[in-house]
């Protein structure tokens, strides 16, 4: 029951954050909406009992990639930063209340329609999503691909530095 309510809250927030990313004029606001979306998806991974992927999602996506995006936006000086001195609590609280209402309505409609086939078996899912069982597969069956990903990341790092470097004229 808790998981289903959590699902609807997170799904509503994720969809609204994606819409906010699409519709906002300012690139910085857009990036912040996307970060909210990534956090919501990490919460959805937790509702699926995939805790390792949820942690990696927050670390890699929300932590690394989005910082890179914000850094480039500020480097290119595309947008004025949002004014941090006045945090609009009214808008934040109304956003959260709206998300709660949307989640509640979706939950009630889904409950009324009752369109639910096979439920996920939770014990099996918790066993599959844990870091240790993933590591067993990752370092045995997929060890080769893991190494290749390392080389890919090295190549991407060097390539990014070379491309972004100022050319001597």
């Amino acid at each position: 029951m808790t998981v289903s309510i959590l699902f609807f809250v997170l799904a509503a927030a994720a969809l609204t954050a994606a819409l906010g990313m699409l519709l906002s004029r300012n690139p910085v606001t857009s990036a912040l909406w996307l970060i909210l979306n990534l956090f919501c998806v990490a919460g959805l991974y937790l509702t699926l009992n995939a805790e390792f992927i949820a942690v990696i999602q927050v670390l890699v996506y929300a932590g690394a990639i989005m910082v890179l995006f914000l850094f480039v936006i500020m480097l290119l000086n595309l947008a004025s930063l949002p004014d941090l001195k006045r945090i609009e609590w009214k808008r934040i609280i109304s956003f959260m209340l709206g998300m709660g209402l949307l989640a509640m309505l979706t939950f009630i409609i889904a409950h009324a329609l009752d369109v639910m086939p096979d439920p996920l078996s939770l014990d099996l899912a918790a066993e599959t999503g844990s870091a240790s069982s993933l590591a067993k597969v990752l370092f045995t069956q997929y060890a080769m691909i893991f190494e290749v990903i390392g080389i890919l990341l090295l190549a991407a790092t060097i390539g990014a530095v070379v491309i972004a470097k100022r050319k001597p004229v």
Partner: protein
Amino acid sequence: MEITLNWYLTLSALLFTMGVLGFLFRRNVIIMLMSIELMLNSVNLTLVALSQSMGDSAGQVLVFFVMSVAAAEAAVGLALIIAIFRNKLTVDITKINLFKY
């Protein structure tokens, strides 16, 4: 009431559609890149939901690889944007036509 696989698949389809719309309609190159991240993210959600419902770890290993490739793609893409911005002083996709003529 149990949340089932279909809900996760529907949600990720909606998120993917929003990513496609953002890629097609926005003209800022950085927001287009962010839409690509949104699409990759929704695909990851599909993979994790299917992997958890089938009890198979392979889908989550694939998600791990997709995240690495997304990080590499974001780094190189943003470097390209910086290089183009130095020449054209814009990130508007309609004004960047380096291959024309």
